[in-house]
C-alpha cells in the first residue's frame, strides 16, 4: 500500500483555541519531544547539543530532561544527539507520547493556581517541572512572564484541555444563568 495516504492525527485537532483578554489557550504543534536521561554533571553539553538540534531544553527532575520543538524532523534526532554527547545519555522518543499546550495571558498564574500547588509567583522564567494540574500530571515550563507550556501524556490531553477551559472560564464573558 505504498500509495496509502498516511495521516498524522493531532490529539487536540478538534479543540478550538481559547482567546480572551486575560487568558489564551492554544494547542501547540505535535513536533518534537525527546525524553533524555543522563549524568546531571554533563547537563552543559546536553544544552549545547540541544541548541545544535534547535530544540529547547527543559529540566525534569534529577538526570532527566525533555527536549522540545515545534517541528517534526525526519532526521533521526535521537541518534544524532546521543552521538554528540558523553556516554551515559539515553534519548527516548516521546514525540507522540506527550502533547504541548500553551497557556498565556496576564491571568495565567491565577488560572493555573486552580490546578497546581506550586507557588507560581516564585516560578522563574525558564524553570520547568512536573506537577499535578487537578487530577492530571503534566510537565510545566514557564517560557515568559505570562506564558506557560503544559505537557501532559497524550491520552490525558483532551481531559486536561477541558479542565483548562473550565479554569479559564471566569475570564471569558458569558450571559448569566437562568
Amino acid at each position: 500500500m505504498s500509495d496509502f495516504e498516511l495521516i498524522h492525527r493531532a490529539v487536540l485537532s478538534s479543540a478550538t483555541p481559547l482567546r480572551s483578554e486575560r487568558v489564551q489557550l492554544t494547542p501547540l504543534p505535535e513536533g518534537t519531544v525527546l525524553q533524555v536521561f543522563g549524568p546531571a554533571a554533563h547537563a552543559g553539553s546536553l544544552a549545547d547539543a540541544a541548541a545544535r538540534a534547535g530544540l529547547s531544553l527543559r529540566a525534569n527532575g534529577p538526570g532527566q530532561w525533555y527536549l522540545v520543538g515545534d517541528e517534526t524532523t525526519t532526521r533521526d534526532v535521537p541518534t544524532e544527539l546521543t552521538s554528540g554527547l558523553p556516554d551515559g545519555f539515553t534519548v527516548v522518543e516521546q514525540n507522540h507520547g506527550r502533547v504541548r499546550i500553551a497557556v498565556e495571558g496576564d491571568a495565567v498564574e491565577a488560572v493555573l493556581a486552580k490546578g497546581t500547588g506550586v507557588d507560581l509567583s516564585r516560578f522563574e522564567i525558564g524553570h520547568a517541572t512536573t506537577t499535578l494540574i487537578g487530577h492530571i500530571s503534566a510537565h510545566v515550563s514557564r517560557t515568559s512572564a505570562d506564558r506557560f507550556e503544559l505537557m501532559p501524556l497524550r491520552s490525558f490531553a483532551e481531559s486536561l484541555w477541558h479542565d483548562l477551559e473550565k479554569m479559564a472560564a471566569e475570564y471569558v464573558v458569558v450571559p448569566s444563568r437562568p
Partner: protein
Amino acid sequence: MASLVSCPHCGVRPKEEFTIKGAALSRPAADAPYATWFDYVFLRDNPRGRYDEYWHHSSGCRRWLVVTRDTASHEIAACRDVAEKPAVLA
C-alpha cells in the same frame, strides 16, 4: 508534616503528588536467613515518633524519597532521595 512535602528535587509539593509505600527498610541480601527476610516483609516497628518512610514523587520527578516524619506530630524532619546516604539529623 504531611500536607506539603519538600522534595529535594522539586521543592514543596502537596501530598497528593506522592505515593506512599511504608517503612523505609533496606532489602536483605539474597542469602540472608529466612528469619531476616520474614521480618523484612512482614514485621514492623511501627513507632510512635520519628519514622523513616518511602514516598514516591509519582506526579513529579518520579524519584523515590525517604521522608523522616514524626508519626505523632506529623512534623517532617528530613526528606532525601532514596539513593542518597542518610544525612545526620540534629
